[in-house]
């Protein structure tokens, strides 16, 4: 039987990695243990991160929020700092699974699973999250774009670990909105999701960032859809035009949960639902 180890410090962690080079890192375990059991063999050595110093806290450092990779999704969704500054990420985190799952599953785990349907990924893309990776050779920092290399694939090297997620606090309180469509409200993997970060001044869009989840191998952005909203009010006409571009940008597959056509339609509909914010003033206050 292989060991299950719980390092508390960086030094302990690195020496365990050295002793068990074949070990897998386990954060909440909610994806990993299911995947390992499906393989029907003995567990590999596991290095659990739930007790690691510096991986379970959420801090404000200057003008950025820094989140330990082993923070549970419940913590991410409910922490005063994320609720105040990163509502987009809170909404994504609160959309994963159900309450008990969110008490175990972690932000770092959601990232490293790198599922196209990972509910925190569109938000992290739009917020330009920077990911600190830790290994024996020290720290390196990657963008989301560089970190997620494909469905289920990341740029992590053997023995390397996602340590912290850092996000600059968005200025001028933009509209931050995440919406997910699944086959039911809880415990469902997304059929499609949309993260939107929109800045308005005097009723006109001055910045639009849009990202769709679960409709391509990675999170999909559409510069055409974003451009279609620029300088315009959030009205049916501009949203329809943006939705037209969105439908062309997404690359969904058909699977057991939904057809590709349905996913395209939903991607466009989610965008048009941003009309709910049409009366937002330049402060971008959310209802």
């Amino acid at each position, binding site marked *: 039987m292989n060991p299950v180890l*719980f390092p508390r410090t960086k030094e302990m962690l690195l020496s365990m990695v050295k002793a068990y080079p074949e070990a897998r890192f386990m954060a909440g375990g909610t994806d990993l243990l*299911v995947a390992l059991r499906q393989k029907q063999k003995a567990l590999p050595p596991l290095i*659990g991160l739930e007790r690691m110093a510096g991986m379970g806290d959420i801090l404000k450092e200057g003008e950025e929020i820094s989140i330990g990779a082993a923070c549970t999704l419940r913590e991410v969704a409910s922490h005063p700092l994320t609720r105040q500054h990163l509502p987009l990420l809170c909404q994504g985190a609160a959309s994963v699974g159900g*309450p008990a799952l969110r008490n175990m599953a972690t932000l770092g785990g959601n990232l490293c699973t790198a599922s196209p349907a990972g509910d925190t990924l569109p938000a992290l893309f739009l917020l330009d999250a920077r990911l600190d990776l830790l290994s024996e050779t020290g720290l390196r920092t990657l963008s989301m774009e560089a970190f997620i290399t494909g469905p289920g694939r990341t740029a992590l090297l053997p023995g390397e670990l996602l340590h912290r997620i850092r996000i600059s606090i968005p200025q001028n309180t933009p509209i931050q909105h995440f919406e997910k469509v699944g086959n039911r409200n809880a415990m469902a993997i997304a059929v499609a999701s949309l993260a939107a970060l929109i800045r308005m001044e005097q009723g006109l869009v001055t910045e639009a960032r849009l990202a769709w989840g679960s409709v391509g191998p990675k999170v999909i952005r559409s510069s055409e859809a974003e451009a279609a909203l620029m300088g315009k009010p959030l009205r049916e006409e501009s949203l329809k035009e943006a939705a037209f571009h969105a439908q062309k940008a997404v690359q969904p597959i058909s699977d057991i949960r939904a057809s590709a056509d349905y996913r395209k339609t939903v991607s466009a509909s989610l965008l048009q639902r941003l009309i709910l914010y049409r009366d937002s003033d330049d402060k971008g206050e959310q209802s």
Partner: protein
Amino acid sequence: MSKPPENAPISFFLNGSPLSLSVAPGRRVVDLLREDLPLTGTKEGCGTGECGACTLLVDGLPMLSCLMLAAQLEGRNIETVESLEKDPVGEKLITSFEEKGAVQCGYCIPGMEMTALALLRKHPDADREDIRKGLSGNLCRCTGYVKILDAVEDTAKTLKAPKEMP
């Protein structure tokens, strides 16, 4: 797994009492409870973290025992459905579930009750919508949700009600 498992010592609190035992670190908590201890109140449904049947409380928070390893229990405070009748909120939940007939096959009920216990301890003023959200991770394949919601709401109302003066 052909090799005999190597056990390691762990210590934790189980339903209020300290417990030390020797167990394979990779053994799932649901198996440890049901087969080794044996506390069979906790049920395994899907085994993949989707149904909530195996929910227990770890340091007061609902978690899924099918996705938890024995080694993770070290130093933790575990509550299973077997402790429900010893808890004032739990005792009321049992009565409400009985009175509202909130049970068909009963398989999901331990998970439902443990989730409700954590919710009502933290939010004794929970309304029906809070309860619906709180229980959203627990599936019932008899579709008995309405009576289950009735029972948890009934417990919440009792907790909220001012104590009667003698």
